[in-house]
């Protein structure tokens, strides 16, 4: 996977995709548009979940899709997450490509049995005869001052489950292309949408063929444009690794650090399983220092995996142990305390400082 390819395809904007139209969309609009195109292009796709149909979902991601594609393709279910995922298994066995939604991250827990024991294993159990082309959309992470269980980060759990793939976009452009890509794969993908980013707009290069897809379809390497991490900002002194809503925050931090002459590279991991270890090695091989940032609690979070992968690949050149700036080992708190819990700019800057000031004794 070449650096050039990585740089090329996901830096959104007309420079890279001259012939494709560029729209200015929010992530909600980008996801909605992606689903609309998927439904149009793939007749076996069905979308369902709680309030996905008439209401268009509590976040309006499926807005208008039922009216346009009919009640058979886009429908409301009764209120039971285990059933939503369990029925996805049966639909997949019958040849459909289900795109179920759980309304909020915290309500994936009632469905964990079906996700872990069924969706993730059916292909294996059936020796490849019953693939599970299921894309589970999970509005994820915190930051919107919501009630309890509406701000959870389940990536470490999902990434640990054999048989699942896990992805989280950080921009409208990625949201559009990664969803189109995920929903047409033959394996189950957990699609974690950073709900605090639903409404921010950004450029989206829309295309009927998702970039990289053509290469993948031809059995070629896509250079990581769809399947790998993305360098969201180049830098020389230190790498910040993040995903979801933390990418935008890390980019802010990088701007602040630049004022102090610290040139921070920001890697948007995108795929949380499989993790693009090469991209991590490439970045930290250059910067020799890394901080990984996530909203989930520290202990046994995905940051440990990322840190260990970096250490494994860059042990010889690493100037300091990889730092983790994460949520604390506490239940996600109520709105008033949210800003204390989620890694804020200050805490990330402190983490950077610890790494930069680290001295071998």
């Amino acid at each position: 996977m070449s650096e050039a390819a990585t740089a090329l395809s996901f830096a959104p904007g007309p420079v890279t995709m001259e012939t494709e139209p560029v729209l200015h969309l929010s992530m909600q609009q980008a996801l909605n548009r992606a689903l609309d195109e998927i439904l149009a292009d793939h007749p076996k796709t069905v979308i369902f979940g709680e309030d996905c149909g008439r209401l268009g979902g509590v976040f309006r991601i499926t807005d208008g899709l039922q009216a346009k594609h009919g009640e058979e393709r886009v429908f409301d279910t009764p209120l039971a997450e285990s059933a939503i995922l369990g029925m996805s298994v049966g639909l997949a066995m019958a040849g459909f490509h289900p795109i179920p939604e759980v309304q909020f991250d915290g309500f994936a827990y009632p469905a964990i049995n079906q996700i872990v024991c069924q969706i993730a294993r059916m292909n294996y159990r059936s020796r490849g005869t019953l693939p599970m082309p299921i894309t589970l959309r999970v509005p994820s992470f915190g930051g919107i001052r919501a009630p309890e269980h509406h701000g959870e980060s389940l990536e470490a759990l999902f990434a640990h489950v054999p048989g699942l793939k896990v992805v989280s976009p950080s921009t409208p452009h990625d949201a559009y292309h990664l969803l189109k890509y995920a929903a047409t794969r033959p394996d189950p993908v957990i699609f974690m949408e950073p709900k605090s980013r639903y409404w921010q707009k950004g450029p989206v290069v829309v295309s009927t063929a998702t970039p990289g897809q053509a290469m993948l379809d031809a059995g070629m390497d896509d250079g990581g444009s769809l399947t790998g991490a993305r360098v969201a900002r180049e830098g020389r002194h230190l790498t910040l690794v993040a995903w979801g809503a933390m990418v935008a925050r890390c980019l802010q931090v990088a701007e602040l650090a630049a004022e102090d002459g610290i040139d921070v590279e920001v890697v948007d991991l995108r795929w949380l399983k499989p993790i693009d270890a090469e991209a991590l090695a490439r970045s930290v091989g250059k910067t020799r220092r890394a901080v990984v940032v996530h909203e989930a609690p520290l202990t046994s979070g995905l940051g440990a995996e990322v840190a260990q992968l970096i250490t494994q690949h860059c042990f010889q050149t690493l100037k300091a142990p990889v730092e983790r700036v994460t949520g604390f080992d506490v239940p996600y708190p109520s709105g008033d305390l949210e800003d204390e819990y989620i890694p804020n700019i200050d805490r990330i800057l402190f983490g950077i400082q610890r790494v930069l000031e680290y001295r071998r004794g």
Partner: protein
Amino acid sequence: MTTKPVLAAVDEDAAPLTHEQLRELYSLMASVRRLDSAAVAWQRQGIIPGYAPQLGQEAAQVGSGYAVDRTRDFVFPTYREMGVARAMGLDMVGYMSTHKATWHGGMYNPLESRFAPIQAVVAGSVLHAVGWAHGQTLSGKPDGERGVAMTYFGDGASSQGDVHEAMNFAAVMKAPVVFFIQNNGWAISVPTERQVAGGSVAARAAGYGIPSLQVDGNDVVAVHEATRSAFAHCRAGNGPVVIEAMTYRRGPHSTADDPGRYRTLEEERLSAGEDPLERFKQRLLSEGVADTAFFARAQQQAQDEEEAVRTGIEALGPRPGAEMFSLVFQEPTPTLQSQATAWRKESEHV
């Protein structure tokens, strides 16, 4: 709609409600209505970030909550039971603080209030009620002295597997549980007819050998009497009861919801039926239980109360961040203590 009592032991000895009790029920409903409408306004004014109104469910909530004996029973709410809380005499600033985003479970003391923390997982606490109730059996108290657990959930929540497991466990163990369903016609945008196969949650009870009552949830007296019978049945050691109060969610699902996307005003008007508060008022007037002076006083009290609660809510500051760490465990861990220390250092440094 009629109340269909199929309990083995209906509480026939219970005296009819006195005039004073009827007036108290009305006052409670009036308070709840006022506080509920106020909370919606507070959200619009930016005083609280969100709220789930119970408009139209006053009779179901007050009528049932009024049957609870706070010396021994325990209530397991979901997130829309403000009227139950008020009927049980909770500290309403403590209750409302959850909507201020002060603390998820609310700031009231659940143990003293006999009202479990507010619960955002639908059907999440139904099984807790079964365990708590079985604890009453295990504690070896005589039938008459054991507490009863009452769990509140909605038509939407009834689809969750936990509800089935809870009813089965309760029936197998003969646990003193009242399963109180408020069938308010909607689970966010999904109407009951596409949610509850067979049309009635109460009808499910028979499959477990549990007696059930489907009651007009907009008639506070009917709700109260049904609940009282259910409690008597449980206290007599006869096991659980299911009550389904048929009512209507007159407002939006929450202050973030836009019902216009899934139902018309005309549909609302037709389905909502009579306003439970107005209906009860007319009855009290026509039966001579209360006069206009009483209603004016009740209204004034409700208003005073609302103002006091608003003052309390506005005065609520954010909780100290240290509570994030100190309230996780009874016995804190070294890891968490060092995280708390690092947090303190970094926040003070800024």
